[in-house]
Every structure is written in structure tokens, then in C-alpha cells.
């Protein structure tokens, strides 16, 4: 078996590699990452070449391909530069909610803009510091004639303050508690009464903005409802699964990028008159790193291909996410150690890969949450 990507997939991979090589400038990345900005011309070029929304249908400027192709892009981009790759791949964060559950009209209005690089999207889901508590939602949307009036406050919104459209979880059934009675409604970034506050200074993933959003009588058309009324949490959970696949691929690419940099270094650097790569302990570290990457690769590609075949298993996705994020953290951490003092210096990029890796591990949902998901699946499924 051995996962063999097809020829067209290989071409996509190569195109991504070439693009990253040509456009991801190390100094630019360094400056932008510190400034917590993404170079918009890189995004525009990427969009022009079709690298954003490759999994959207062609009528919305996508390429009609699968998550697996998107995974290959994410991996290549993050391998070259974790921060740039993350920034680019999260351009259309949460737009999959529209893709999977939205009406054609919503798809046409928003997916096209995202794929063409004109707008970003983000999720306005959580109201809790934990980042993942979708049940405990107080933001609510009241139906008045042809519009929803949204009031409330969201926290930790990806692309917060930058996105053209947010996918908002709102309580639409006033009497409901918990996950029931919550719906997903789109709000455009420039809506009146919508304010981005408290932009975060982050550990990693710094080319993507994160902020809170305040909704003060934000009025959006009724047609902005995504999917079914009252099913917002279920849709959000399905989206998390899909998002975790992409995140795993970004982490996998980050791990690979860190590994190659470390490998390059230990082959050249000498210690006590011997190449670092000649020490058994160094070699065993390389073996561990390579094995972590190999494992993550298998798990990530599998869940991506499964998703494309209409099979999606939250437990396996959580395993892929855990293994890829752990590989990214471990490999970049060990790479820093192998480079010694240089590893700690920003110039050698690895400290940035490590910060990005650790941030992705948190963004994915922490280890405890992932293990809860895995265990739930096991105990429910295995007879």
C-alpha cells in the first residue's frame, strides 16, 4: 500500500514548493512575524496561482480538489517557512462551514472572495478562555423581519479584525441551554456595530491575527444563516474535525522543515574534531525525529484521504493532530538543541518553528481534549 500520491498531486506539491521557494523570503518572514503581519502581496500571488481554496468548487475560484491536495500545500508551505505557511493556509479559516453547510448564494458571496485573496474569514465561536467551549454561548441572535440582530462578545477569533466575514455561533433559541438552540450565522467584517478589540500578542502563529469581537446590534440578513437553525454546534464540531486535518498538515510541514535544517547543520558542524552527525547520540536524535515525522505523515494523509472519501472519524483525526503537533514540537525543540546557541537565535529560524509548533499544538485543542475525543470514540465504537 504505502501512501503514493498521484501524478497531478505531485505536480501540485511541486508547484507549492516552487512558489514557497520563490516567494517566502527569510528576511521578510522575520520582519513580518515580529510585526504580526502577513505580506499581502504573497497572499495575492498565492491566490492568483490558485493556492487558496483549492478544495472549493471551480465556480467559486477553487480547483474542485480535495482536502488531501490542501494538505500537500500546507505541508510544503510550512516546510519552507512555518509562519508564512500558517498565515497563508489560514486565509480562509472557517470558510469550510460555508463550503459544507452554506447555501449556494453564500458560497458565491464569500468563497470566491476568499479564494481570490480579496478577503479573509474567521470563526467567532468561543466565549471562553479555554477556546473550545462551544456549549457555553451567550451571544445571541434575534430574528427581526428579514434580519438577525446579533449581540454579544466572542473571544480568540482567528483573523479577528482582519476578516471580511466571520462565522458566528449565536443562540437563536432564547430559552435554550447548552449546545442546543445555537446556530451559525455569517457577519461581514465591516458590519455596523461589529468591533474588533484586544488584539493578541502571540507566542507563535503570529502572521495570523487573533482578537476578540464585540457585537452590538449587528444586523445581518436572514439568509446569512449557515446550515440548519439550531445545529450550529454540530456544524462547528464537524468543522473542527476538518480544520484539525489541515492543522496537522501544517504541523507536519513544520516538523519536516525543522528536521531538514537540523540535518543540514549537523552534517557540517564539527565538535571535538568530528562532525556532529558522527556522534551516536546525534544520530539517534535524528532517528527519533524522522520516526516522529514518518508516523505523523501516515496518520495525516490517511485522515485527509478518508475525509475526501466521505469518511471522517473524529478519533483518528485527533490522533493525527496529536501526532503531527507533537512531532512538530519535538522535532523543532530537538533541532534547536542540536544547533546549540545558534538554535536559540532568531536568524536560524528554528526558534520560530518551535513557537509556531507549540502554538499549533494549543490551537488544535490541547492533549487532554484530544485524548477525551479518542477515548470517546473507542469506548463507543469498539465492541
Amino acid at each position, binding site marked *: 500500500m504505502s501512501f503514493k500520491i498521484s501524478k497531478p498531486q505531485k505536480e501540485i506539491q511541486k508547484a507549492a514548493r516552487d512558489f514557497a521557494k520563490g516567494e517566502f523570503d527569510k528576511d521578510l518572514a522575520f520582519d513580518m512575524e515580529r510585526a504580526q503581519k502577513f505580506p499581502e502581496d504573497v497572499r495575492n500571488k498565492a491566490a492568483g496561482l490558485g493556492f487558496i481554496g483549492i478544495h472549493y468548487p471551480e465556480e467559486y475560484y477553487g480547483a474542485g480538489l480535495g482536502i488531501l491536495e490542501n494538505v500537500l500545500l500546507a505541508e510544503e508551505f510550512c516546510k519552507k517557512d512555518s509562519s508564512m505557511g500558517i498565515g497563508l493556509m489560514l486565509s480562509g479559516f472557517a470558510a469550510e462551514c460555508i463550503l459544507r453547510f452554506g447555501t449556494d448564494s453564500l458560497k458565491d458571496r464569500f468563497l470566491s472572495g476568499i479564494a481570490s485573496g480579496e478577503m479573509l474569514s474567521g470563526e467567532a465561536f468561543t466565549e471562553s478562555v479555554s477556546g473550545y467551549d462551544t456549549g457555553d454561548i451567550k451571544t445571541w441572535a434575534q430574528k427581526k423581519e428579514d434580519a438577525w440582530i446579533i449581540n454579544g462578545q466572542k473571544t480568540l477569533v482567528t483573523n479577528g479584525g482582519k476578516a471580511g466575514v466571520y462565522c458566528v455561533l449565536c443562540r437563536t433559541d432564547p430559552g435554550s441551554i447548552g449546545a442546543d438552540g445555537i446556530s451559525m450565522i455569517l457577519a461581514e467584517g465591516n458590519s455596523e456595530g461589529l468591533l474588533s478589540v484586544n488584539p493578541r500578542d502571540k507566542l507563535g502563529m503570529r502572521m495570523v491575527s487573533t482578537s476578540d469581537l464585540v457585537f452590538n446590534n449587528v444586523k445581518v440578513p436572514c439568509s446569512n444563516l449557515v446550515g440548519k437553525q439550531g445545529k450550529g454546534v454540530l456544524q462547528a464540531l464537524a468543522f473542527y474535525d476538518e480544520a484539525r486535518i489541515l492543522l496537522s498538515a501544517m504541523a507536519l510541514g513544520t516538523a519536516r522543515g525543522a528536521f531538514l535544517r537540523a540535518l543540514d547543520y549537523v552534517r557540517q558542524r564539527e565538535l571535538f574534531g568530528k562532525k556532529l552527525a558522527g556522534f551516536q547520540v546525534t544520530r539517534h536524535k535524528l532517528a527519533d525525529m524522522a520516526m516522529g515525522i514518518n508516523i505523523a505523515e501516515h496518520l495525516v494523509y490517511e485522515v485527509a484521504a478518508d475525509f475526501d472519501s466521505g469518511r471522517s472519524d473524529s478519533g483518528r483525526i485527533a490522533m493525527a493532530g496529536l501526532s503531527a503537533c507533537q512531532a512538530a514540537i519535538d522535532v523543532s525543540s530537538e533541532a534547536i538543541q542540536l544547533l546549540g546557541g545558534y538554535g536559540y*537565535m532568531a536568524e536560524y529560524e528554528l526558534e520560530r518553528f518551535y513557537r509556531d509548533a507549540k502554538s499549533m499544538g494549543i490551537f488544535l485543542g490541547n492533549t487532554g481534549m484530544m485524548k477525551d475525543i479518542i477515548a470517546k470514540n473507542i469506548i463507543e465504537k469498539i465492541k
Partner: protein
Amino acid sequence: MNILKYSEKHSAFREKFRAFVKKEILPNAEKWEQDHMVPKQAWKKMGQEGFLCPCVQPEYGGPGLDFLYTVIIIEEMARTRQTGLISYLHSDIIVPYIESFGSEWQKKKYLPGCVSGDIITAVGMTEPGAGSDLASISTIAVEEEGHVIINGSKTFISNGINCDLLIIAVKDPLIENPHKAISLYLVEDKTPGFKKGGKLEKMGMHSQDTAELFFTNCRIPVENLLGEKGVGFVMLMKKLQQERLTCSIMALNKAEYVLEWTIEYCKNTQVSGRPLSSSQSVQFAFAEMATEARMSRLFVENLIADHMEKKDIVIETSMAKYQTSDMANRFANRCLDIIGSYAMDEQCPLVRELRDLKVMPIFAGTNEIMKGIIAKSMKL
């Protein structure tokens, strides 16, 4: 069983230093981090209040206190959210070279300033081509008409910008055996031919002014030789025990701080109406980390006691250096994972700790060097 016997004087000193931290350090920590620099004035205040070089003898302007005062300062410093005012490097790693190996003239000239904070010190060992392997340094010193001419460069030098006095390791190009070719010299700031490079951009320790230093026909008087010529290696070896021990004390206290902060945070942060700390897996994580921290503290305190009795514990301090710095990094990683999304935010104190701690398994001899030393002592 309490290993360390703190007296009331020690406790009073700790209280006094805590007040100082609260008044002079904590309010400035953010600014220093942003500036990537601690103002010299802050060092002077430390000196004026008697918090620099607690162990320097009174005849050289010091308070002549015991090593427990050093421990107190490091412990409190570990909780200040800044690493730039890296007083233990100055007080307990660099200055002891001067006090132990310096000539009477050198001691009289420099030590009072080191104690008062008028002289900030740095030590120059590492070079672009030589990190853990000191024998391969290539900065050279040649004697010429009562002077010494230094050429070469050093990198990753803490206090590199602020330093008023540098202890530099150099090689005599005429001596082949590298272990007999290395000497230490004192170089004052502003000596012609001694140039400080820009601050290096690092992952963390942002308030720390780490720099490259360049020497181009830098002339210093022969009197600036520290100790004897060609015994640089030996002098370094003699000071490794205290260097590793102080690093261990810092790493241990950082690890404890990370754990304590996380426990408090998880007790006080509710998700879905339950504190984060009510989760069994979080509780087990805390139980495991608390156990390791407890063992590590006992180990380090025992080493402090032995060190104060002047025992040879160079192997044990190598163990402690690797174990504590490794533990501190594991704790930071695990605790960030436990607390959830707030862990991505630079406002979260653990984030800075994660960035700052990452260098501890690298500096003062990488943890791989430590393990090699331990293994060597086992005569494998």
C-alpha cells in the same frame, strides 16, 4: 527535613530583596523586555542596595555573606518575568574568577565596582566556531612590549552590550596543546580595538543584551592577565561547579514558578462551570510534576549544602544542571498544554517562561556535555 538552615538574617534579607523586586524590577520588567536591554542604572540600584556579589569579601568592598544569600537572590529573581538583570551571572559566575584568581591589584581595582554595580561584567568564551568545545577557540593573544594584543571574536555574550569589564578566553598561537594554550584576560570596555556588535535576536531572554564582541589588535596591559598564563582551562574547570549549581538553582525555581502559576490558574479558571483543576488528568499531571519538583529541590538544596562545605560535587552539579533545565522545559511545555488557548497569548506568563527556558539546556555547557561528563565519571 530541611537541608538548608536559613537564619532570621537570611529571612530578613529575603524580605528586603522581595521588596526591592517589587519596587524596582517588576514594574520595569515589561519595558526591559521590549527594549531588549536593562539600563545600567538598574544594576547600580542592585549594587547600592547590597544585592550584587553577596559573597565578595569586605576588604574588596563586598558584604562577605554566605552562599545562601546568593541562593535567595536567584530564587527571587526566578519570579521576576525578566532575565536581563542576570545578576547571578555577574555575582556568582564571573566575579568569582576575579576574586579567586585575580592579583591583589586587580581585586582592589575591580571588585568594589562589581559590588556597587558600577562595573557590569561579562565572560567571553564562546566563538562562532567553538561552543561546547573550548579547545577549538581561535581568538588569539600575543604579548608585545608589555602589552597583549588580542584578535578574534566572541559570540552569544550575555551582558555583551552593558559590560564594563570582560573576562576573555584566548589562545596562545605558539602553544600546540590547546589545554595549555588558553589564558584568561581582563578587558575593559572602551579599550581601543574592542568593539561590541549589535544585540542578537533571540527566542527569549529578550531583556538580556546578548551580543557578539570583536577584537582587532586590541591592546591591553600584561597586568590584565587573570591568574597564570596557560592555565585558563584549569581555572575554568575550578569554577564549573558553582556555575552549574547556580544555573540549577535558577532552573529549579523557574520550574516551580511555572507549576505554581499553573495550579493557581487552573484552580481559578472555570470552564463550563468547573475549574480546570477538577479534571482528573490535570490533577495527575500536577501530582507528577509536584513529585519531580520536590525531588529536584531536595537534590539541589543538598548540593548547595555540600557546595558550602566546599565538597567536590562537580559531577552532581552536572546532573542537576541537566535535570533541572530539562525539567523546567518539560514543565513549561506541559503546563501550556494544560491551560488551553490562553497559552498562545504573550500575556500568559508561561509563554515568556517557555521562550526564556529554552536556552537553559544549551548554555553553561549543553545537557549533552553534562551527560558526557557524568558518563565519564562512571568509567564506562
